[in-house]
Each structure stands twice: as structure tokens, then as C-alpha cells.
């Protein structure tokens, strides 16, 4: 039998004005197990806590109930007070007689009655409480960043600067990500490469950062503080140590017909290639699918011309296994496929392009060397049309329901740059809404209109039809003038919706990080924990969590780094002791519980059991308490009642039910 003390707080008049606290004390003393009860003005105060401590010591209490405000407010306070007095903190229960009673009831008799019942339920629960001890788990002081775009680079740099080792895993042959494909950046019109390249170099040179390019995460196991990750280093066919990055192999390679990923397929590249000139590492890879040597066995030009002897056709994929304490996801985005939008003629005309393609066209290193020209005939356009919200804000299953957030700004940027460089080109932007929240953003957009004379028309484009002469007929509505517009354009640029990198779903599954229907990773709390995944030890950086522009991405990357550093700085982690536990004697080993566990915390082991004298080996569920977050889904799924949740056990909750219904 427990020896329980009950402490009823007045909370000034917050409780005492509507609840007869003396009556609660009196009634509590009648409950089984209660050996002490008292009331006090402010239980959470120093003096109040001292009263609790004194009672614990003097009356040898084994459990306490505090009738006060919400446990969300002061549960920790009272648990700590109890612990200081030598009582296990998990022997404390709170009866919420403020938020759930005194504040919502006016009648004193009614409120008092309810307070008594709430106290009774808490007492019934404490009677069944058992001392719990948080477990400890170690922290591997190294972080993994998945994705080597600006988000991943920033996060890695911040973590590394704090003194922890970081590995970046990047799928493509070079870090840099989407930002490396951009020409200029809003709202200051900096050259994207000029601000990104130094960061890339810094990351590559940082002694705490190790970069795995042309590599993918293959398998993740473990839990917060102690993840084990298999990384597949795809065969590069070039020895990273020997290659000097001279580029001769790329010049001489006879296979030159592969669409360039970096230039969005607008031109071609060689089979041995680095994606772009400033690539880091500056070591090419052989695209085996398009390499003549790999396809036919006859060629080997690159090996012949390589002075360093770095070409290695026999290289194989390699699996590296590393341990990490924290994982940051920074997998970024891609633009959506436009298959569902035939009305914009993207697949019919070379002169209908996405905004990202326009970035490449505008870029000096791009397919047109930075000259604005039609890809169909190389002529300079005179009339350009931009269409906003292509695939964004759609609730019809053709596109994405969300706003892609960056399009309004980059379109203003494009329009401005074109009008600046080619003043004879007319630029018309068809928009639904112009959304420019952000520092200096609206000013930027207004400059495009006022200073550069970009023609903004409110109304969506209905269709784009290629004409026999190669021009494009754009049919749109002007909602403000209430007229339909039919105009001819030389080029049409689609502000294509962005979506999370398609690989992220696979990664989320490996990490048991939750993901929404749009494939964005879910944050732990929309407002208060925006860079953490609900899965402990997993952090979110950049667009994998939701549409963002570069400043926001960098902000979030830093925030994710801080959270990861906060974790890595700890030597040991205390785990929540309110976890599920399986009774080995009751467990059927049926796997039902593992099916509902969102954290993969339940595994099955063949264990030797002694069931009342019968010794046998049984398949039983084992809960990894470091992974278990204590939701209790398994306890209800378990058919045999073997699985129970510490701190919220079946018996405890039933005791509360009984106490309330008594």
C-alpha cells in the first residue's frame, strides 16, 4: 500500500474562490492510501514546495497528488520538488482543479464536488504508480546531413564550426544543389554562383566536414544519439585521389549526346563529366549508361588521355557504415512534371520553358552563353509572357494544393533582368495574386512594375497555342478590365510549382520521420518546433519541410544546425521512462504491435522464458525504450495485454475511470 500525500493549492483565489479547498483536503483523507493532506496558498512557490518536501520526509510518503493547475504548467516543478525530497519524480500526479474545474465552473458546491472527484482519480492512479527511472543513452558526436544544396552546406558549416564532425551525403556528383543552377538571386540580384561557391569551397576545405558526393543513404538504424547509417558510394569510375581536375577527359570524350542535368536538358554533356565548372569535388564521374566503353567495351579514350591515370573502369559501388548522433534532412526540391498541363504547350514548343530553364538560359555558363534567345530558332524574343501559379494552388489533383512561395519573386527578378538587359523586349506577367511578404520584397516587385515597365495582368492564362509561324498564341483573361486577351508571344515562361525531391519519401521511411501528403517532411510543432521532426534526433533543413526561398532556407539551415548541436553537446541522453513494455510471459509474438509503432521501436527476439516452470524459447516483442516515445498505440493493438505503457498503464487508467464513475 502506498503512503500518499495530497496537496491542495489555492492558487491565490484562482482555485480557492470557487473550490472549497478545505473540503477537498477533508475528502482526500478518506481515500485509500492517503496519509496526509493539506492546502496552501501557492503550492508552486518555494514555501509550498518546502511543505511538500517536509511532508514527504516526515510522513514517509511514497506518492503525492498535487491538486493545482494543469500538469502542463507545473508537473515538472512538483516532480523536481519531490525528487529533491528523495521521492521518485514519477510518483507525482497532478489533479487539474484549475483549468479543468475552478476556472470553468461558477457554482462552489459543484466545483468542489468535481475537484474532489478529480483528486480521487489522481489518488487512485498514484496508488498504482511505480517508481520510474529514465534510461540513458550515449550520443555519437557526429552529424549526418542528407543533401548538399545550400541548406545542407549551411547546416554542415554551422555544425562543423561548433566543433562537431559532419558528413554530407549528396546524390549528384557535386554539392551545390539548386542554388548552383540559378543565375541571380532576389531581392538583391547577387550572382548566385558568386555567393554560393565560397560556401562550397569552405565546406570542402573544413577539417570537420567530410563530403560524400555521388552517394546515397542506403539504410538507417538506431535512434536519437546513436544512428547507424549505410552510405552507398556509387562507382565514380574515377580515382578521387589521383584526379587533378584538368578536364581533358571531358573534352576528348566522344560520347556527347547525353542531356545535361545541370542545364535542365537544354543542351548535352559528355559521358564523363562534372556537372558544372565550379563543381566540388572537381572530379568527374563516368555516366556508365552513356559511356561507350561501358556500353560496347570499345573506347577508353578518357583513360588514354588522363595524365594522372585516374580513370578506373573497374571501380565498384562501396558501402560505408558510419555512426551519427543527429541527422539533418536537406533534400530540397525539384519542379513538377508538366504532363498534366497540356494547355500550356510545354511539350509542343521549345519556346515554352520553365523558370528554372530560363535561369540556365540567362546564365553565362548556360546553353546559350547567357543570351536570351528562343531555343527553337535562336532568334531574340520581342514579346515574353510569364505565367504564374502553374501547378501551384491547385485543388484538382493535377497540381499541388500549396503556394510554391518563390515564384512571384523570381518572376519579378526575371522580368526585371530581361527589361534591364533587353529594353526592347515586352514582358507581360499573368498572375492570380502577387505575394511578396519579406524584407524588401514588395519594393522589389514594385520596381519591376514602376521602374522597368513590366506589364502585370491579373488573370490566369487559359491556353498557349503554337502558331504556324512559330510564335505562341496566348489566351488569357484580364480580370480587372474584364476582357479576354489574345496575344502573340515569342517565349512563354511557366512559373512551375516546386515539389519535394521525390527521393525524400524513401528517406523519410528509413528515418521513420513523418511526411505529409505533399511529401514535405512534417515538423514536430508548426510554430514552436519548426526544424525538428517528431522523430527524435532528426532535423529538417530547407525546402524538404516546405517551400522556402534562399534567405529562409539559410535561416532554417542554421536553426537545424543549432538543434543538432544542442543534441551533440550532450554526453548522455535521458530517455522518457513512460515507454511501452512487454510482459514476456504474456506476449504471443504475433507482431501486431510492431505494425502500429510509428518509431520502429519494437523488434522480436527469440528469448528463453520460464513460464511457471516451463522453460522454452519464445518469439517475443522487445521495446527499445530509447526509440519508444510512449504513445501507447501498441498497448491497444496487443491482443494479449502483454504490452503496457509505463506511467499510463491499463490498470492506472482503469483506476481513474473507476474513481470518476464511482
Amino acid at each position, binding site marked *: 500500500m502506498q503512503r500518499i500525500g495530497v496537496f491542495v493549492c489555492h492558487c491565490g483565489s484562482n482555485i480557492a474562490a470557487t473550490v472549497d479547498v478545505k473540503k477537498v483536503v477533508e475528502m482526500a483523507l478518506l481515500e485509500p492510501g492517503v496519509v496526509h493532506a493539506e492546502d496552501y496558498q501557492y503550492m508552486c512557490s518555494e514555501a509550498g514546495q518546502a511543505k511538500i518536501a517536509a511532508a514527504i520526509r516526515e510522513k514517509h510518503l511514497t506518492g503525492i497528488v498535487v491538486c493545482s493547475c494543469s500538469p502542463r504548467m507545473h508537473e515538472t516543478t512538483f516532480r523536481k520538488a519531490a525528487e529533491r525530497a528523495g521521492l521518485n519524480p514519477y510518483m507525482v500526479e497532478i489533479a487539474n482543479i484549475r483549468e479543468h474545474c475552478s476556472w470553468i465552473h461558477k457554482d462552489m458546491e459543484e466545483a468542489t464536488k468535481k475537484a474532489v472527484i478529480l483528486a480521487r482519480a489522481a489518488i487512485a492512479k498514484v496508488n498504482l504508480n511505480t517508481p520510474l527511472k529514465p534510461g540513458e543513452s550515449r550520443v555519437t558526436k557526429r552529424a549526418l546531413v542528407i543533401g548538399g544544396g545550400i541548406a545542407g552546406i549551411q547546416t554542415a558549416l554551422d555544425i562543423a564550426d561548433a566543433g562537431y564532425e559532419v558528413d554530407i551525403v549528396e546524390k549528384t556528383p557535386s554539392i551545390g544543389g539548386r542554388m548552383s543552377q540559378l543565375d541571380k538571386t532576389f531581392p538583391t540580384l547577387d550572382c548566385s554562383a558568386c555567393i554560393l561557391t565560397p560556401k562550397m569551397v569552405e565546406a570542402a576545405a573544413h577539417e570537420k566536414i567530410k563530403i560524400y558526393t555521388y552517394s546515397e543513404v542506403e539504410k538507417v538504424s538506431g535512434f536519437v544519439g546513436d544512428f547507424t547509417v549505410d552510405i552507398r558510394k556509387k562507382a565514380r569510375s574515377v580515382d578521387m585521389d589521383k584526379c587533378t581536375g584538368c578536364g581533358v577527359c571531358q573534352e576528348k570524350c566522344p560520347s556527347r549526346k547525353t542531356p545535361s542535368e545541370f542545364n535542365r536538358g537544354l543542351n548535352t554533356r559528355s559521358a564523363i563529366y562534372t556537372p558544372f565548372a565550379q563543381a566540388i569535388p572537381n572530379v568527374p564521374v563516368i555516366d556508365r549508361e552513356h559511356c561507350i566503353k561501358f556500353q560496347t567495351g570499345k573506347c577508353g579514350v578518357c583513360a588514354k588521355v588522363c595524365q594522372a591515370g585516374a580513370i578506373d573502369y573497374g571501380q565498384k559501388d562501396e558501402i560505408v557504415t558510419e555512426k551519427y548522433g543527429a541527422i539533418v534532412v536537406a533534400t530540397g526540391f525539384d519542379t513538377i512534371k508538366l504532363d498534366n498541363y497540356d494547355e500550356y504547350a510545354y511539350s509542343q514548343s521549345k519556346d515554352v520553358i520553365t523558370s528554372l530553364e530560363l535561369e540556365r538560359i540567362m546564365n553565362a555558363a548556360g546553353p546559350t552563353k547567357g543570351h536570351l534567345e528562343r531555343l527553337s530558332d535562336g532568334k531574340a524574343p520581342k514579346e515574353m509572357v510569364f505565367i504564374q501559379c502553374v501547378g501551384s494552388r491547385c485543388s484538382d489533383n493535377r497540381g499541388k494544393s500549396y503556394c510554391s512561395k518563390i515564384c512571384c519573386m523570381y518572376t519579378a527578378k526575371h522580368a526585371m533582368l530581361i527589361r534591364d538587359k533587353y529594353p526592347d523586349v515586352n514582358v507581360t506577367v499573368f498572375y492570380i495574386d502577387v505575394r511578396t511578404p519579406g524584407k524588401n520584397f514588395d519594393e522589389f516587385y514594385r520596381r519591376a512594375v514602376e521602374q522597368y515597365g513590366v506589364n502585370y495582368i491579373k488573370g490566369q492564362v487559359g491556353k498557349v497555342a503554337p502558331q504556324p509561324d512559330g510564335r505562341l498564341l496566348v489566351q488569357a483573361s484580364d480580370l480587372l478590365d474584364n476582357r479576354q486577351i489574345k496575344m502573340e508571344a515569342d517565349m512563354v515562361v511557366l512559373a512551375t510549382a516546386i515539389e519535394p525531391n521525390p527521393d525524400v519519401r524513401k528517406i523519410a521511411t528509413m528515418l521513420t520521420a513523418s511526411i505529409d*501528403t505533399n511529401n514535405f517532411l512534417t515538423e514536430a510543432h508548426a510554430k514552436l518546433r519548426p526544424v525538428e521532426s517528431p522523430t527524435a534526433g532528426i532535423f529538417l533543413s530547407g525546402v524538404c519541410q516546405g517551400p522556402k526561398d534562399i534567405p529562409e532556407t539559410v535561416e532554417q539551415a542554421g536553426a537545424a544546425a543549432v538543434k543538432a548541436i544542442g543534441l551533440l553537446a550532450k554526453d548522455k541522453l535521458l530517455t522518457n521512462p513512460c515507454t511501452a513494455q512487454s510482459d514476456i510471459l*504474456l506476449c*504471443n509474438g504475433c507482431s*501486431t504491435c510492431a*505494425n*502500429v509503432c510509428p518509431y520502429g521501436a519494437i523488434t522480436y527476439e527469440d528469448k528463453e522464458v520460464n513460464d511457471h516452470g516451463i522453460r522454452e524459447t519464445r518469439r517475443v516483442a522487445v521495446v527499445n525504450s530509447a526509440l519508444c516515445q510512449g504513445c501507447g498505440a501498441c498497448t491497444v*493493438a496487443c*491482443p494479449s*495485454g502483454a504490452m503496457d505503457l509505463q506511467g499510463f498503464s491499463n490498470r492506472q487508467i*482503469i483506476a481513474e475511470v473507476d474513481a470518476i464513475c464511482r
Partner: protein
Amino acid sequence: MQKLIDRIRELLADGTVARVLGWRTGDLPYNPEPAYFECEEELQDFVYNGFCGANLSKYMIEASRLEGKTLVCLKPCDTYSFNQLLKEHRVDREKAYIIGVGCKGKLDIEKIKKQGIKGIESISGAEIEEAAESLTIQTIYGEKTCAYKDAMLERCHVCKGKEHQIYDELIGDSSDTTDADRFAQVRRIEAMSPQEKFAFFQNELSKCIRCNACRNVCPACSCRKCVFDSTKFDSSQKANADSFEEKMFHIIRAFHVAGRCTDCGECSRVCPQGIPLHLFNRKFIKDINELYGEYQAGEDITADTPLTHFTFGDAEPSIVGERG
């Protein structure tokens, strides 16, 4: 049956299996019982006829722990249960040699007795060789006959089909016995007023003597220790039964097997009080089918079970009131 026995002899003799799980002649002509046979002589008592309703798959939990393979005779509907147990890692496929036996519908002695046939000495027509249209029953009051169909268990009228879901070999023919709507009874009750529903179940459940036969026979109720026998849940044991489990036993049991029950109908078959316990299970099955898509437990062991799975667009619980 001879072909079945011959094959069993063969497999037992050549050591393929260490024992046989089948049915043994009972002390009355209509109550064969599940039994192990370990040698030639014991097979004398082996029987397989229309009264062999018992589902043997649950015994394979125990048999999976024994040395060597166990030959088990499973009717088509029993194989669903075996599969479900396999899915839950309760039986070992390697330890089982499954002979899928044919089924032409199983008989319910209560239905025969209800026709006023009493003092039964012997029954012919229940052997599965013949496609018997009727049973000939010798009683102390003389010979009586009864149409086979009229003596069939309720579950056979709503049979899931005569295809074995899992087996090593098949022996014997089956014939389709489905001639009723599986959910007709459930629908009839659903259409009642709350008062009528309550009266119906109160009447039925009042007969319960808590003999636990339903639980003990149920292949889904295969827990090492039942929650009703466990002190961990505070639902006390039979000896000092508190009112909670007395009242809720059948509902809790039905919920525990929801999504796992194959609708084998053993609970109703063995109930000495004749309570139509399968109605609870079938209600769950009907709801699952309607709300979450057709699901037959034991059919596909890789399929997600309805209660350990979800879709984002699942119906809200308020649908219960809305659909009337």
C-alpha cells in the same frame, strides 16, 4: 475417407510426419473429437465425416512446439485460420504437413434434434464419399430422415468457398454449400430499434454461463494467457469474476479478434447455450468491409490487417450515427 486414411498411413509410415492431427470417433455417432494419432493402431479410430466441424488449426500452435512434423487435416475454411495464425507467427509452417480435405458442409446435431429427432443410435449419409441429399437416422423410436441441407451448420450456408488457402496436398472433393447471405442476420439486427436490439442481445447473452468454450475453441483467441485470466488488466478471472467482464466479455472478445477473425464460426458451434456469438464477429467484418474495403482474414497473409492500418481519408466515428 479411405483414400485419406491410406495417404495418412503412408506419410506416418515413411516418417514424413511424426503424428497426425485429425478427428477420432466420439462416444456418440455425432460427436467426433479432435485427436492426435501417432501410430498405425491409433488410426483405427480416425474418422472424417459431416460431423467433423472442429477447426484443427488452433491445435497447430501446440503441435508447432513438438518434435517433428505434424500432419493436419484442414477443411477449406480451416485454412483461413491456419493462415491467420501463420501471419501472427503462432504456427510454424515447417512443422505442418497440411492435407486439405474436401468439405460438403458440416452438420449441426442441434438442428437435427430440433426437428424432433431424438434417441439417436446411428446416422448414415454423413460420410463425405457420397453426395448425400439426406441423412438416415436410426433412433430408438425407429428410422428417421432429414435433408442434409437442413442439418447443416449455419456457417456452411454462408461458406466463404471451398478453396483451400494453404496446403501440401488435397484429398477429397468439396461441394458448394453457400445458399444464404452472410450478413443477412447482421442486417436484420441493424434494422431494429435500439430497444429491440438491446432486448435481443440481452436475451441471448443472459444465457451465457461463462464456460469459456467459445474462447477456448477460437483460433484467433490464441493468447498464451487471456486478458480475462490475467491480473494485469484488472479484469479478474472466472473464479472471482467481477461484473465488468461478466457483462462485457463477449464484446471485448469480439473486439480483440476484430480484423483477425476469419469467421470460422466455431464460437457459435461450440456454445452449449446456443448463443449466436458469430454475430458480433460478423458485425465487425461487415463494418470493416464497408468502411475500409473488403477484407478476409487469413486470405492474404501479407495484407495489412484493418486495425493496424489506416488511410488518411478513413470515415470519422460519427458515421455510426449518420448512417442510421
